């Protein structure tokens, strides 16, 4: 073989031959690591680990077969091709985890990227092993096939043990990828340096050094990459993710802790959401005489609705949420309807998928004064689009929807982290002609969280709190209204459509808080 073109002098196990044989070990270890990374990452991002592992491994093995088969068309200069393939694997495999994490929130068809990458790496690894065997035969190396295969299988064992025990817990996926890319490229460089006529491979040597440097940079910058990659920031395994017309919905689960993220922002943790939702709903319903007609803005997860529907006197609940995919998800999925007790399919509820601002403005004309209690549970004012829903104009429309003796509550971000933003909500409600009372509650997964009650008349001190809750009692309700000095009321501007001070204040506060 090799027509003496690529191979060195035919000696017994020379230095290059030893390096090549060692590379068989590294190549197979790396190959298996990439395969495990892709499977783990797919389970992590897409859920259903059995399917992910099975399809990724199947695809990978199939691609290896393809690569093997194609190796027959390589007729000369195997060593040069081997080095190049090795470097390409280093790049593709090394950056695979980082690339997939970064791509996940950006692309619509994530599986195309995933399987494309798996196919590519599998093909190259499949191409590499037969090449290696042929090169080693050129060195007149005995038992070439069995040697290569032995190292290959030992490498596989090492990888499969290292991955769960050492790499995942200590390095994480992105860094593990880069580390093995570095090993891949390192072996290629070692082989090149061990070759007697290294000068013939100058361009490969330069490439190997560049690839090494790039992967090392990736390794060092892994944390930053992780932060860029939106999903990398979820602390728990993702079990569901979908991009709707309006937002990215991600559900994560670790043991009994189910979490919902919208556009990367935590909406609830099933461990403590009852604290948030009881505090959101019960104080306002407990301060309205006979709340028959209730309106919820936002709250597509149905958890606030669940709290409202605990009240037997509520005859009708209207829930206005922008995203039909969100309300459908929380109406149909067993795991989620168990959490909201089927609130979204309750006979007393009407779910309207509409823009809150537009709906409020239009309904203010036709349904003025028809709601005894209004619960405003929008996402935090992270941008100008959501910021509109916290303006004086919106609150004026909401006020028109409210019955004369009715009351309203607004989730108003954290009075501890963003006190200016929190009190801006109160000031704005007052500018819309309402009286207000602020209160706050500790929700472990959120921290200290704030709400503002608003009504046309004075808001009573005491509330009739429905028994049977896990958190709020009549005595507990009274304690929510005390603000220590670090969260105390301060003067703020009014949030208007034309100034959106709340969005600016909210962004400032959280960027200070998160450093």
């Amino acid at each position, binding site marked *: 073989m090799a027509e003496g073109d690529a191979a060195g002098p035919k000696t017994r196990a020379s230095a290059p031959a030893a390096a090549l044989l060692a590379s068989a070990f590294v190549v197979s270890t790396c190959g298996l690591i990439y395969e495990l990374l892709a499977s783990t990452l797919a389970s992590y991002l897409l859920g259903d680990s059995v399917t992910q592992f099975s399809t990724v491994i199947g695809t990978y093995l199939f691609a290896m077969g393809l690569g093997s088969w194609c190796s027959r068309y390589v007729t000369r200069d195997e060593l040069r091709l081997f080095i190049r393939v090795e470097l390409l694997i280093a790049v593709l495999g090394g950056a695979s985890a980082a690339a997939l994490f970064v791509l996940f929130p950006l692309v619509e068809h994530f599986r195309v990227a995933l399987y494309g990458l798996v196919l590519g790496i599998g093909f190259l690894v499949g191409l590499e092993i037969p090449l290696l065997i042929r090169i080693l035969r050129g060195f007149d190396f005995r038992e070439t096939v069995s040697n290569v295969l032995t190292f290959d299988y030992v490498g596989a064992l090492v990888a499969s043990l290292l991955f769960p025990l050492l790499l995942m817990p200590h390095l994480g996926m992105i860094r593990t990828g880069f580390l093995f890319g570095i090993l891949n490229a390192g072996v290629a460089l070692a082989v090149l340096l061990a070759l007697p006529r290294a000068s013939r491979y100058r361009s490969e040597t330069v490439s190997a050094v560049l690839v090494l440097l790039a992967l090392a940079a990736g390794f060092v910058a892994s944390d930053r990459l992780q932060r860029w990659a939106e999903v990398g920031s979820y602390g728990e395994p993702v079990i569901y993710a979908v991009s709707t*017309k*309006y937002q990215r919905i991600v559900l994560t689960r670790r043991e009994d802790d189910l979490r919902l993220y919208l556009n990367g922002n935590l909406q609830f943790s099933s461990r403590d959401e009852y604290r948030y939702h009881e505090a959101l709903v019960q104080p306002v319903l407990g301060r309205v005489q006979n709340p028959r007609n209730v309106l919820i803005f936002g709250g597509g997860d149905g958890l606030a609705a669940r709290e409202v529907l605990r009240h037997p006197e509520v005859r009708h609940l209207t829930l206005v949420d*922008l995203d039909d995919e969100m309300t459908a998800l929380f109406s149909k999925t067993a795991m989620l309807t168990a959490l909201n007790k089927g609130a979204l399919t309750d006979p007393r509820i009407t779910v309207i998928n509409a*823009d*809150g*601002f*537009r709906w409020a*403005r239009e309904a203010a004309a036709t349904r003025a004064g028809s709601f005894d209690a209004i619960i405003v549970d929008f996402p935090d004012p992270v*941008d*100008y*689009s*959501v*910021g*509109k*829903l916290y*303006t*004086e*104009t919106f609150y004026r429309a909401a006020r028109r929807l409210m019955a004369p003796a009715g009351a309203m509550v607004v989730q108003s971000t954290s009075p501890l982290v963003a006190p200016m933003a929190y009190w801006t909500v109160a000031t704005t409600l007052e500018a819309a002609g309402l009286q207000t009372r602020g209160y706050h509650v500790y929700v472990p997964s959120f921290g200290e969280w704030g709400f503002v009650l608003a009504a046309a008349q004075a808001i009573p001190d005491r509330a009739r709190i429905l028994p049977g809750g896990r958190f709020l009692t009549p005595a507990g309700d009274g304690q929510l209204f005390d603000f220590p000095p670090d969260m105390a009321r301060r003067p703020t501007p*009014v949030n*208007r*459509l*034309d*100034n*959106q001070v709340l*969005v600016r204040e909210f962004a400032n506060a959280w960027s200070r808080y998160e450093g």
Partner: protein
Amino acid sequence: MKADRRTLLGLGAGAVAIGGGGFAATLGGTEALPPGGLGGTDLARGHRLRDGGFPAPSRFEDVDVVIAGGGIAGLSAGWRLQDAGFTRFRVLELEDEAGGNARGGRNPVSAYPLGAHYLPVPNREAKAVRHLLRQLGVITGDRDGVPVYDPEQLCADLQERLFWQGRWQEGLVPRTGLSAQDRADLAAFEQTMSAYSRRTGSDGKPAFAVPRAYSSQDADLLALDRLDFVAWLDRQGWRSPVLRAHVRYAMRDDYGTEPQHVSAWAGVHYFAGRRGWTVDGAGDNELTWPEGNARLVRGLAGFCRDRIATGHIVHAVRRDGEGVQIDSFDVAANATTRIRARAAILAMPHFVAARICPAAVGGAGAFSYAPWLVANVTVDRLPGGRGVPLAWDNVSSTSDSLGYVVATHQTPDAFPMATVLTWYLPLSDMPPSAARRLLLQRTADTWKQIVRDDLLAMNPDLEGAIRSIELWRWGHAMIRPTPGFLDRGEAVRPAPPLFLAHSDLSGLSLFEEAQYQGVRAAEGAMAFLHHPHESLL
């Protein structure tokens, strides 16, 4: 840098010579262009007005006041007459739709402007504007005697952003990466302008007012009109290229004119004339609507809709004893009507007024007009970009266009799925006549390619999202306030019963000026006809 930009948009003289085809080839764009038509002022009617050949009068009518021209000035004159209880008038409009350069269009995605697209919160002195805005529900009331505007008609935050050094930043004046000279000149400029803005002249009037007729007549201020704005900036010693680029943007934005051709008085007026009077510190904001100032057109026309006739080309106006004789060609009926009126208000661009009534109206030689191209681009998603999020007005520091405004900015929806971007280009860097030729010569495809490439350079994220491009050519979009413009309007005014009403007379193509001229002419006509009224001016 400037040469490059010019090549990009093909505004340079060279591009004129090359013509449309050669230009298209240099762009290298081979993808299919989005659909969309090419509209503009009715060229055939305009040319017919120039070339004559109207049939002899076959119908005869009598009416007290004829308002020839249904742009903002003409409609304002009608509104003023109606508001004073004077109803014996007619508005004759050449186009099929009233509104002049404040017209708008509409497609399934949104309404959009074809030209003028906003009104700054009016100054305290703009009494007539406020009177109208109260009637239209734009002003909803008063707080401590100060007008309160409908928050949904005030431009929502974010109002403006500038693409500067690879990022979008808030506001239109660059703030990062400035040299010490840039910072010093920008600060000195700002200080000088705010001093001018606060100054009250020895006659007790603001130094720079909107409408400009309320401005002080102090000699040192009027002297600015003898200078061009660049010469004035040179005199101040402000040479920062960042300041100069910002000034150029501003002059092209409001006047469609390069700063070296703008009177220094008009230049300073742009920066020192606005003191919007309202509550909540919103005085530096604008009022805007998806369809732009077409909203105001609709409001104005609503007061006298049954007295507006469109498709009527007024082609000859002459004194007739005590009154006026007006020949008007009805396009639909293909017949000329001769109207005898007690007074006539010519509410049309001055170059048209001087043509149809040469005996009574002063010549138009000193009046020149800026040609503009406006493109309404329908896109499947909202533009984004690095830096601050989408604003209402989006301007790129690297483009010769003025950027784009977003038609759906004022909609209540948090997430509009598609929108219309109105893209503006004043063809200012060549003589207006040459620019007008270029505007007409270039094919729709060439213009579309220019619009698309300019938009994608600002917002690469719009690649693949452009659904259509509707072009609109304005051959005489606005009057150019060149040095010496302050006296030009008064010099051409005829004696009653003829009255002129157009922003050309102010020399500044602004809603407030057009309205002022319309109201002034209407009140002049009512005084002449002894109709009692209390002046709004």
